[in-house]
């Protein structure tokens, strides 16, 4: 009987607990604390943290791939097989040794699904391309729940669908009423570029640097979309940094805004915005769709869905669809997006010095974006007859609508009767478009 308990104990997860797991539980606890008690973007951080908790429990079946062909992960030569047809393998077992053509090193090939080897289609000495089928694994196990949920990130479906909802929630009116604020949204992307440079100096590759830089864009879905493409191994750290700093906007931005502006500039009052008609909004939707997709086809799914959502919203005849986009779609996808980001946050991947560097670079990105937005506003003031209050420049970092609210609060600190909120919404939503464009630029050039 005692023996039976020992037998069962071996089947539990206890023997597989690694030192990283409890550490990550503590990380999750911190994230939960920030989300629940400090209000850091809880809609995203709670699912992310919960996914991370599941990722750091010894339940490999949650994420195991369904059985099927085993593909060569690299371009190289098959040195030797460690298994033969009929063998049963577990997730993580070594199947073969391969010699990487580029680096010349020998690397083990590990199973990503469990089952029985039914076929070996390569023989030692074979030269294999990346993606070439080498063997087949079979079992009746269907693959883990999060394998399926994560398809939404792997297939790059979730970020555009979130953008569908975001578009349905966004009012581009303030931007249309004062088109120059588009430039403020563009200027904030300078922070992205500067962070890219810093990241390369710290040794990150170009794809990694782009993914880190985009944190400064302060657009969660765009950051996830880009890093899933260019640096999937950094996805969890980037997502956590992006959403955490978005919540910290009210702390990060004000000192920078005050340092870069004079009291006189902060007192500038802006004229009320004109009313923008339905037709103007609809034409704008189509214009952005056409121009931006022509310019950066790689960001087509993000921009297309954002503008579809906005068109549905503004056209006034598709209420049912708008409500579903703003509620059901965005809510359901958020739960799945958050948990699938979290499930990639395993200890081995997250407890790296890269994570710390990313967290540091994230502050840099947000600060530089804020600064460049404010400075751009000051530059525009040199030429404009009607001055812009440079406090709205900081709103170019997206983080809709928090950055705009920061502009409002800072403005009222100097003059309680100065209402900047609506003026700041212009650069705020322009920042979303600007970040999508620069993301498209990175994908086009780095893929």
């Amino acid at each position, binding site marked *: 009987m005692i023996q039976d308990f020992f037998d069962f104990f071996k089947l539990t997860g206890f023997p597989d607990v690694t030192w990283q797991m409890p550490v990550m539980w503590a990380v999750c606890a911190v994230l939960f604390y920030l989300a629940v008690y400090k209000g850091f973007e809880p809609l995203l951080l709670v699912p992310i943290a919960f996914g991370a908790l599941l990722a750091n429990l010894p339940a490999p079946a949650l994420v195991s791939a369904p059985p099927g062909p085993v593909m060569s992960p690299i371009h190289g030569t098959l040195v030797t097989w460690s298994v033969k047809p009929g063998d049963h393998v577990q997730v993580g077992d070594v199947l073969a040794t391969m010699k990487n053509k580029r680096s010349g090193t020998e690397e083990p090939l590990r199973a990503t699904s469990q089952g029985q080897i039914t076929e070996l289609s390569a023989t030692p000495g074979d030269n294999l391309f990346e993606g070439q089928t080498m063997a087949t694994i079979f079992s009746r196990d269907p693959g883990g729940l999060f394998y399926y949920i994560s398809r939404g990130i792997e297939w790059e479906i979730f970020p555009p669908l979130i953008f569908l909802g975001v578009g349905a929630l966004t009012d581009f009116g303030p931007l249309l009423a004062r088109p120059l604020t588009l430039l403020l949204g563009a200027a904030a992307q300078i922070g992205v570029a500067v962070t890219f440079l810093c990241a390369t100096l710290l040794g990150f590759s170009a794809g990694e640097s782009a993914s880190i830089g985009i944190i400064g864009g302060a657009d969660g879905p765009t950051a996830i979309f880009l890093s899933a493409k260019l640096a999937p191994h950094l996805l969890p750290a980037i997502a956590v940094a992006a959403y955490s700093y978005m919540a910290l906007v009210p702390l990060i931005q004000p000192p920078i805004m005050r340092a870069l502006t004079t009291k006189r500039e902060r007192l500038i009052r802006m004229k009320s915005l004109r009313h923008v008609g339905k037709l*103007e909004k609809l034409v704008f939707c189509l214009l952005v769709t056409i121009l931006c997709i022509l310019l950066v086809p790689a960001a087509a799914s993000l921009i297309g869905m954002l503008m579809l959502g906005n068109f549905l919203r503004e056209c006034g005849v598709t209420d049912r669809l708008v409500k579903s986009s703003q509620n059901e779609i*965005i809510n359901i996808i958020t739960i799945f997006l958050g948990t699938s980001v979290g499930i990639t946050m395993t200890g081995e991947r997250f407890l790296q010095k890269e994570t710390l560097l990313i967290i540091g670079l994230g502050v840099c990105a947000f600060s530089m974006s804020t600064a460049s937005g404010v400075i751009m506003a000051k530059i525009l003031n040199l030429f404009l007859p009607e001055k812009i209050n440079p406090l709205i420049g900081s709103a170019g970092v997206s983080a809709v609508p928090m950055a705009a609210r920061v502009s409002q609060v800072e403005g009222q600190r100097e003059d309680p009767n100065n209402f900047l909120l609506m003026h700041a919404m212009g650069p705020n939503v322009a920042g979303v478009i600007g970040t999508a464009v620069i993301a498209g630029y990175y994908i086009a050039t780095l893929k």
Partner: protein
Amino acid sequence: MSLLLSVAVASVSGQPDILGNLKYQTVGVAIVMLSLCGLAVFVWLIARLLALFQCSREAVSTRKPLAVGDGEEIPMEVRAVISAAVHVALRSPHRILEMHPVRNPQIQAWSLEGRREIFQSHTFR
């Protein structure tokens, strides 16, 4: 050395080619600036065009400024009760001419702090 090549080299060698990357980022920012600047010009042009063509149409549309916002209909029962209560309270013969939720989508009081709430529902990424 061309942009793409320089970055590709930098990326592969692992040795960041600072100047190449600087150029790469400059081009990127320039493209963002130019494209959003172009967009601004287009938007301004469209606004002008529409302003020219839509004078008459706008005039019509402003005649019904009290239109009730999307889906914020007040149920008939509540209307009835409001009428009843108002009637009793005021004790004077009168008719309620128009009843509508306070927020009016066409009013231009953008600067009202109250508009904040609209964007509360917005914290979604």
